[in-house]
Structures are given as structure tokens and as C-alpha cells.
């Protein structure tokens, strides 16, 4: 595996992007996501209107992987129904675990976030890649009173 498959153009660009990096005073829910071992530390905010995520943003600091992943997540879920966002979480976590490998499905659903596929070969960095997704999962579980994704 080449490191440039991890630190790909998509990930490097999104890690620096400030498109989704802003405070959201009228958020429906904000949760902190934290990796105590490495210090990735984000606050993820979303706004839900009529079961649709109408806005998603984040603040915080962390490595390129965590920041890119969070930014891509925000872009991906904006405008999507909550139920669909939940499906995306499942697909993303399934991809990272190596359980979902069909590229056509992954690309269709996750779009640019498919760039994290190779993270499954770097166990130490998996936590960085999934941080935002787990945080969103927690928000959805709390908002809808459902179980978190395994």
C-alpha cells in the first residue's frame, strides 16, 4: 500500500477545507467527538427539519484523516433525510471494517468519502476516520431514540 492512497488528493483537500467548518447557533444537536489517545477533538452540529438534515457543520482540531472525514461527512449528509444518513453511517463503517467492499455501491452512496477505504489497512488510524461518523450516529440515536450502529 502506498501512503498516497491514504493521504490522497481528496483527503488532503478536504482536510484543509473550511466549507463546513463553522459554528451553528441554531443547531438541533451538537455533540463532541474525542479520541483520548490521539487528541482528535471535534464538535459536530446538525440541524434537522421535518426529519431532514438541513445543515451540518463542525469545529475542532485533529489530524488530516479526522478533519477530512468530518468535512466530507457534513457535505454528504446535508439535505438528506435522517434515515438515509443512518444508512450512510452503516455503509461507511462497513467499508472501514472491510465488510462492504463493492466499489460501485460504495462510490454511489459515499461519493468522495470512499477515499477512506484504504484506512482499513491502518488499524491505528481507523478511530480518526470514524470519529465524525460515530458522533453523528450518537446524535441520531439520541434524536430518534434508536440504537447506535454496531
Amino acid at each position, binding site marked *: 500500500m502506498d*501512503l498516497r492512497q*491514504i493521504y490522497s488528493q481528496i483527503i*488532503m483537500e478536504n482536510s484543509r477545507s473550511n466549507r463546513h467548518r463553522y459554528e451553528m447557533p441554531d443547531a438541533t444537536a451538537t455533540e463532541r467527538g474525542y479520541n483520548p489517545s490521539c*487528541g482528535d477533538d471535534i464538535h459536530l452540529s446538525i440541524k434537522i427539519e421535518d426529519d431532514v438534515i438541513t445543515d451540518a457543520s463542525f469545529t475542532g482540531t485533529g489530524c488530516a*484523516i479526522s*478533519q477530512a472525514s468530518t468535512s466530507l461527512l457534513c457535505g454528504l449528509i446535508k439535505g438528506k433525510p435522517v434515515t438515509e444518513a443512518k444508512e450512510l453511517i452503516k455503509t461507511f463503517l462497513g467499508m472501514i471494517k472491510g465488510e462492504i467492499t463493492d466499489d460501485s455501491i460504495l462510490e454511489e452512496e459515499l461519493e468522495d468519502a470512499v477515499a477512506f477505504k484504504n484506512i482499513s489497512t491502518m488499524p491505528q*488510524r481507523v478511530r480518526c476516520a470514524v470519529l465524525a461518523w460515530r458522533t453523528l450516529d450518537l446524535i441520531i440515536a439520541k434524536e430518534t431514540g434508536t440504537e447506535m450502529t454496531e
Partner: protein
Amino acid sequence: MDAILEKLTNPGFDLEKVRSDFAYLELEGPIIYLDNAATTQRPNQVIDRMSDFYRFENGNPLRGAHRLGAAATEAMVNSRARVAKFINSKSVREIIFTRNASEALNLVTYTWALDNLKPGDQILITRMEHHSNFVNWQFAAQKTGAELSFIELTSDYQLDMADYKSKISERTKVVAFSAASNVLGTMPDTREIIKIAKQHGALTVVDAAQLVPHIKVDVQDLDCDFLAFSGHKMLAPLGIGVLYGKAEILNKISPFQYGGEMIEYVEDQSSTYAEIPYKFEAGTQDVGGMVGLATAIDYLEDVGLTNIAEYEAALADYCVAELEQLPDLEIYHPRQGVKGPAIAFNVMGAHPHDVATILDYHGVAIRAGHHCTQPLHRYLGQNSTNRVSFAFYNTKQEIDLFIEALHDVRDIMQLG
């Protein structure tokens, strides 16, 4: 620089022989292990000694009325004597075996601190403490009502002795400090700190986890009350650590954990306890770890503590000099005075975790994070840092490869 290069070329011990004792260097890779402050590697001698113990001397120490029990007891007694000699404690009874430095420091907290501190008292620690000599004192402060205060650092990442002198007073009941920072490499003047503490009647607790592996320690010369360290940071196995304590204090304080071996008489409603150090060693002890530690000490003394200190200092100085050549790099390491072979740094624009991942890809093992020193990192204004830390089995070539790999970091992180 010439002296440094000379030392790196002629370390005063057989570096090739030493390196042949460490099996991890045979791994396909290669692995350039620069994370020795987290835990060192262990030479084959240590590993084999443990195996032999388990094969042929394995019994329950202090209990057996038979040959194997006697062998295990002897292994325990000899290991304790080896540690006592190594740090020059007055008596073997002053050596308590623990799981690690953290437990050693907790023992002091749970026994001496909870029984002796009260509201109005001050606990004085430093800004650079590892969480293991920090959170335990928070706990003591919360339980007893004592106040927790901090000695701050100078701009050269040294302990600020003026700040220390301004903060210590008759209210100060304990000065607990790291004799070597696991992040900065800072080595404050331990003897001076202890001398001043004694003038104010304060107990002294030395976190020597990062000192004992690098510099010869003499507890009688230091005159500290307690001193803690971990075996796994000095070639010994995981799971074994040491608390040195002055006998007169150990005799006075309560036990910590309760159970087998630490008792004398057990009546239904009350018990009396064994003599020190057994009073503090409840249940069956890790003799495998003890013989490993004793063998590690043999190994260190065979190479020579002075050789080790000088060679490691050369490694660190060389590394700092090389790092200073790189653009956009912040180094958190004293430039003056005695210091240990740990160096923290940040590549501006690259998160430490990315740096560590890219270095790992090149086979260079360093650590990224807060290194169990969140308060220090808040002071540094960094969420996290990179850290390289050396042992005497590292080489100049390894540092060169590390520096080379750092160039690739700039490349991959597109830092131009």
C-alpha cells in the same frame, strides 16, 4: 558537533553486540524504534531469564515448603537485593515491588497522602508531570481538602526554580515531581529540589520513571523520601515497577492493598501486618517480572550507566541539531543544562498523528499525542506533539533515516 559525532562513532561499548541482543531488529521492516520513553525493547537476556524462571524455578514465593517454592523465594529475594544495590537504598526493605510507576505513586497517595494531608496544606507538583504523578494528587487534594499547586517552566522548558522557591512554604506538605520529563526531556536539579523541600519540612516524592533508565540514581545521595520507576522503561518486562521509600516512613504508614502475604496475625475483626516491604505487597507477586528487572539491571550495568548516559545525550544532541535544520518545525526541548533523550516537536501544518503515520510507513516508530501530559500540552499551546525518545541501542544512522522520512512528511502533507 565534532564531539557528538565522535561519541556516536565510538560509544565506549560494543554497539553491534548490543543491537544483536534485541530481536525486534530482526523484523522485516526495518523498524527504527524511537519510542523508548513509552517503553523500551527488551534484550534476549531478559526474555530468556524470565523463561528459565518459569520453566525451572517456578513456585509460589514465600509460601512453599519445597524446592520450587524455595527457588521462587530466592529469585524474589535476589531481585530485591539487586534493585536495592542498583539505586543504593540503605536496606532491601525499602524496595517495594509494584506493577509500574503509576501504582508506586498511587501507593504513596493512598497511604501517606490520605492519612496526612488536611485543608490548608499544599501539594506542590510541576507543570510537566505525567498524569501518573498528577491525577493521583488531584484525588488526594479532593479527598483531603489540601490545595494542589504547580511549579511552572521557563522559556527554555526548564523547571522554574524561582517559581518553586516562591511557591514553597511551611504549608507545603509534599513536593512531588518528575526527575525527567517524558515529553521535553527536561531534567531538573533533583537534589536541589529535595534540599529546598526538606528545608520546609515537606515530603519528597520523585517520579523517576524517565530518570532511572538513563542516569545512575543514588537514593541516599538524593535523600528523597519516595522514588518511583517502571521496569518496562529500562529493558525489563511489563508489569513490574518499584517504589523506593525510606524505612522510617514506610514503617509508619498504613498498608495499601490487603490480602495474602502482607499480614502477620488475622483475627476475625482485625489484623496486624507484616514487616516492610511485605506489608505493601498483597497477594502472589510477579517474580517473573522481578527476575526480568534484575536481569535488565545487570544488562544496563554491563553496558555501563555512564556510557549509556553519554551516548544517549549525544544521540539527543545530534537529533536536535538535525531537527533545527528543518523549516517550520517547533522543538520543545531545553537547549541548556542536563536533559534526557526525549524530544518533542511539531511540524507546522501537519498534525502529529499524520506525521507519526507517515514516519511509521518509513519504519520509524515515534509517538504522537499528549503523552499523558495534558496540562503540559495546554501550557505549550499544542493539542498534541510528536516525540522521539532514544535508548542506547539506537544509532546515528537511525536518526538520519528519521530526518529523511520527515522530508517525506512535508511532501505528502503538501507543505511545499
